[in-house]
């Protein structure tokens, strides 16, 4: 037991970061489920983070009300920008959300309430393991159910072919706004959780670079199922820490992942098809025989 507590004491920030990263990765995954790439998730997280921080710091609110208020504001903003933006498709939507992120960053830099370039510091240390991983567990169960629900299938239909989905009577805009709302809620919660164990927040956290980091989690892990983004987020948070020498080349690593995974493993590292192939290959090896044709039929 002491070994466990000792390990946690040494790596608690890293462990908490992994959980928050996983929540952020899920927030970009939910819009990707509907085939929409949003580059505004870091900004949504910053909205949640600033709101929760101001509430606990200035108004001495309890943690959960502050977190929910931050998440609710991020959701409201996501829906507000989502409704006009979702007429846009593909790269136009990505650019619009990128612009939104910049507006949030500049606003955070200039508003009196957000503390300017320095941001807010000395935020109370209210968040521990159970808050982050409790939230993540709830989110994971939610996504497990979502993927198997009517809503999940509707989102998948929109991703595969928007026109066909519309012809089948799926209300495209409503589902896209719903996906954005969920993204806003998750990102807002993640942002609120993060500030209460890093004790600070500043405008850089709404920047394009942060949005790209979140995207890298999802791309690396794969967007076939919700486990992919979680796996990607945890791996990419822990890996540079475990391999210290990589730290200086973090951007290089992220860049290489974005290029190589998108090019050669378009479904990410953790994907049912790939997993199935690996499992099939393992079985073939175990039995000492196998037929590629059968494997192709399975895939």
């Amino acid at each position, binding site marked *: 037991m002491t070994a466990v507590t000792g390990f946690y004491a040494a790596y608690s920030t890293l462990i908490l970061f992994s959980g928050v990263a996983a929540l952020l990765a899920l927030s970009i995954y939910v819009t990707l489920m509907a085939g929409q790439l949003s580059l505004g998730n870091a900004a949504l997280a910053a909205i949640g983070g600033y709101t929760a921080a101001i509430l606990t710091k200035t108004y001495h609110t309890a943690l959960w009300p502050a977190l929910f208020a931050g998440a609710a504001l991020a959701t409201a903003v996501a829906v507000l920008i989502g409704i006009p933006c979702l007429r*846009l498709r*593909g790269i136009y939507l990505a*650019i619009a959300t990128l612009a939104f992120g*910049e507006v949030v960053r500049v*606003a955070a830099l200039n508003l009196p309430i957000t503390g300017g370039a320095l941001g807010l510091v000395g935020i109370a240390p209210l968040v521990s393991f159970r808050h982050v991983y409790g939230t993540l567990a709830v989110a994971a169960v939610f996504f497990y159910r979502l993927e198997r629900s009517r809503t999940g299938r509707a989102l998948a239909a929109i991703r595969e072919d928007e026109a066909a989905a519309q012809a089948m009577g799926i209300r495209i805009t409503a589902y896209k706004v719903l996906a954005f709302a969920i993204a806003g809620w998750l990102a807002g919660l993640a942002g609120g959780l993060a500030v209460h164990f890093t004790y600070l927040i500043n405008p850089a956290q709404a920047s394009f670079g942060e949005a790209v980091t979140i995207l890298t989690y999802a791309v690396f892990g794969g967007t076939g199922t919700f486990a992919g983004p979680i796996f990607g987020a945890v791996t990419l948070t822990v890996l540079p820490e475990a391999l210290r020498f990589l730290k200086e080349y973090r951007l290089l690593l992220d860049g290489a*992942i*974005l290029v190589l995974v998108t090019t050669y493993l*378009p479904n990410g590292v953790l994907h049912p098809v790939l997993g199935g192939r690996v499992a099939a290959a393992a079985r073939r090896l175990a039995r000492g025989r196998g037929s590629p044709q059968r494997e192709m039929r399975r895939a």
Partner: protein
Amino acid sequence: MAVFLQQLVNGVSLGSVYALFALGFTLVFGVLEIINLAHPAVLAIGALLAYSLLAGAKTGLAVALAGACAGAGLLGVLIDRVAFRPLRLRGASRLSSLITSIGVALILVNLAQIVWGTEPLSYPPAAVPLRFFTAGTVTVSLLQLLVLALVVALMIGLRALLLRTRLGLAIRAVAENPQTASLLGMPFDRVVAFTFFLSSALGGVAGVLVGMLFQGSVSPFMGTTYGLKGLAAIILGGMGDVTGAVLGGLAMGVGEVMIVQYLNSSYRDAVAFGLLFMVLVLRPTGLLGQQRGREA
């Protein structure tokens, strides 16, 4: 009035840089309908290459410009080979290209950090022409005139290239319909490679101009601001439209300077992106752009 005219001059010279940068963006978009988010990193590398030539090899400005231009251009061809061509061959979605281009940008910026460090650099003062002309109350530097002249010349040259030459015809044919153009014997791969060369060369030149206009502005991260402004410029002007990109860039430059002068300097960037956001929502084809139908 004097202040207004002076700011107009400053705005136009800032806008010319945005325009030059936006030209490269819009060229690739016009031909392949992809956004090359590695373009800002190309701008930075162009500026840094010129720094090495000016400060390290002690060459003249013309050589530095040519070097940055050629280096950035070749880098563009390489970027296409690594990040875009494999996806094109697979017929992947344009969102995938957007993601790989972000990846390439990260790689280039990190490599530039390793080579040139993270400190902001300045071109040696001797390398930058410092002459001022005064007309009434308005002062214009030789540099500002050079930048404007270069941008106008490049815009006219680019239009002439696209509209009057066989190569331009091939580029436009490929932009119109890649399959048909290939069937009719257009060398698709070479046209794309040339487009990337041209686009990135323009980006490299834009980087050198930024370095000359602003002291201490050359660093691996310098592309970020111009990337977002350039993106705003081409959306304002209409994606894929050469004239639109230049007008969009000039409008961004003048608008920014005027906002700082008459409104509030700290919201400069928010206004730019708020505007970008509004244009996307209200008129996604931009002010001059043609309806592309499929996407917007």
